[in-house]
């Protein structure tokens, strides 16, 4: 029960952003995707979420190819996603923001409440923010709400795009703790975290993927020779 990506290529605006990506994301792991700015981390997550269509390649989950499925079915398949730029709905309260993906899946009210409880247990700082408007959050607060929202539906995969960006150390630490706690409480869950600041990860990950210029590998040596230092144009 894991997600296999096979020789996936993604083009954006005429440029190839991800090249020949073949990775698998096994359940129960916390996978860190590290790479510099512009390496393609965000694009990788967006492709997994179906928000960009790969030019070629396969994405297999339980034997079915996700590439062929519309993006909005990912949530039903247990994918939670926290985008890099947060995107909290300003017209809804924080509580409504968090509950929304479950409501969309027609999760029963009681179950939603339970899930909120579970999330709050991992992120107690969120509690006082629940009744506030989604429009009024600071940068870091938005990050946390986005994480919480992803956890609400992410029963199998939680994809977090630079979750530590802009978090104060105190929160980053709590955030790391929450993620670790999550691994305890949901042993089957696969958490994917992209991060340009590997130092912030502080060992939450159990597996690290390196990404550079659209190539993904489990260790930096695996890249095609010399390309990491190569010049500007491909």
């Amino acid at each position, binding site marked *: 029960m894991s997600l296999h990506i096979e020789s996936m290529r993604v083009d954006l605006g005429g440029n190839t952003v991800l090249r020949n990506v073949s990775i698998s994301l096994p359940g129960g792991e916390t996978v860190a995707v590290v790479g510099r700015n512009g390496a393609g981390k965000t694009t990788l997550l967006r492709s997994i979420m179906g928000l960009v269509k790969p030019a070629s390649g396969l994405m297999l989950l339980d034997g079915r190819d996700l590439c062929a499925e519309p*993006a909005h079915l*990912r*949530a039903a398949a247990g*994918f939670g996603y926290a985008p890099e730029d947060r*995107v909290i709905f300003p*017209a809804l309260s924080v509580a409504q923001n968090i509950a929304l993906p479950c409501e969309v899946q027609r999760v029963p009210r009681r179950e939603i409440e339970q899930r909120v409880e579970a999330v709050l247990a991992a992120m107690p700082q969120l509690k006082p923010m629940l009744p506030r408007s989604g*429009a009024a959050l600071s940068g870091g607060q938005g990050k946390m709400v986005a994480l919480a929202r992803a956890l609400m539906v992410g029963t199998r995969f939680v994809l977090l795009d630079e979750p530590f960006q802009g978090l104060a150390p105190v929160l980053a630490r709590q955030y790391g703790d929450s993620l670790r706690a999550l691994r305890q409480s949901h042993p089957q869950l696969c958490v994917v975290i992209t991060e340009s600041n590997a130092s912030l990860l502080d060992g939450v990950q159990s597996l690290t993927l390196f990404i550079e210029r659209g190539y993904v590998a489990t260790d930096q040596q695996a890249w095609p020779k010399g390309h990491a230092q190569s010049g500007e144009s491909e």
Partner: protein
Amino acid sequence: MNLHLLLLAAVDGLSYASLLFMIALGLTLICGVFGVINVAHGSFYAFGGYSAATVVAWLLPRDASTAVLLLALLGTAVLVGGVLGAALEKGLMRRFQDRDPVLQLLVTFAAFMILENLQRMIWGATPVNAGELASRMGTIELLGVTFMKYQLLMVPGIALVSFAGLQCLLRYSVAGRKLVAVIHHREVATALGIDAARVGLMTFALAGALGAVGGALAVPMTTFVPGVAADMVVTSFAVIATAGLGQITGALIASILIGLARALAIYTFPELEVVMPYLMMVVVLLLRPSGLFTVAAARRI
């Protein structure tokens, strides 16, 4: 201008306001969801009116009862408007959804031209109306003046019911929150499991039905000719801008303001009658730059 005339003006104004509101409702909905002013909304109105009038005209010689006529009137409009709205979304808007809003607006403009032409091909250039239906519902005496029951009770009634219904839908239902999410950020809404395309389709169908019902409600009172669409849609632009884009309560209040202002103008400065909606809009926007009601905007910096 005495109190008597003032009251009469208020009655006229309110019934006009109800109609205006019905038309503005669908427009403001689409504007809220897609951030696009749907110029083709005028065509929903026109098609609704024309087709409802056709069906009523067909039923009339067949001795249909008033209730049947009314149901047919509204039913036809809902059907025609819903289908038209859905077709517009599926056939056109979807293909342009990632484009600049200005281009999307122009797409609706193009759709408007095409529909305007189709309408002329289907119903010709001669005036159409369903006055018989209004006559059948009888009259009512108010302040010494005879009014049509249809105009005084029916239209405002349906407008209020639509208002309440839509308000519930948006405020208290998941569908409403889905809509809000798609409005704000399509991609993230999709990632949260919302079928943005479906939401779009349903919204357009609903807006189309509302616009068409507006037309159907109008056709027993007013005359439909080519060009109604353009005139009506531009007035409802004024309503939704006065209201605050996507604001349903705002649209209600703005319609009433505009309806009253227009009726008053007819009694005092008839020259100003036609400009009233726009003057109202300019005045309101001067005082409140984003309309009577505004949505919370996301923090950007």
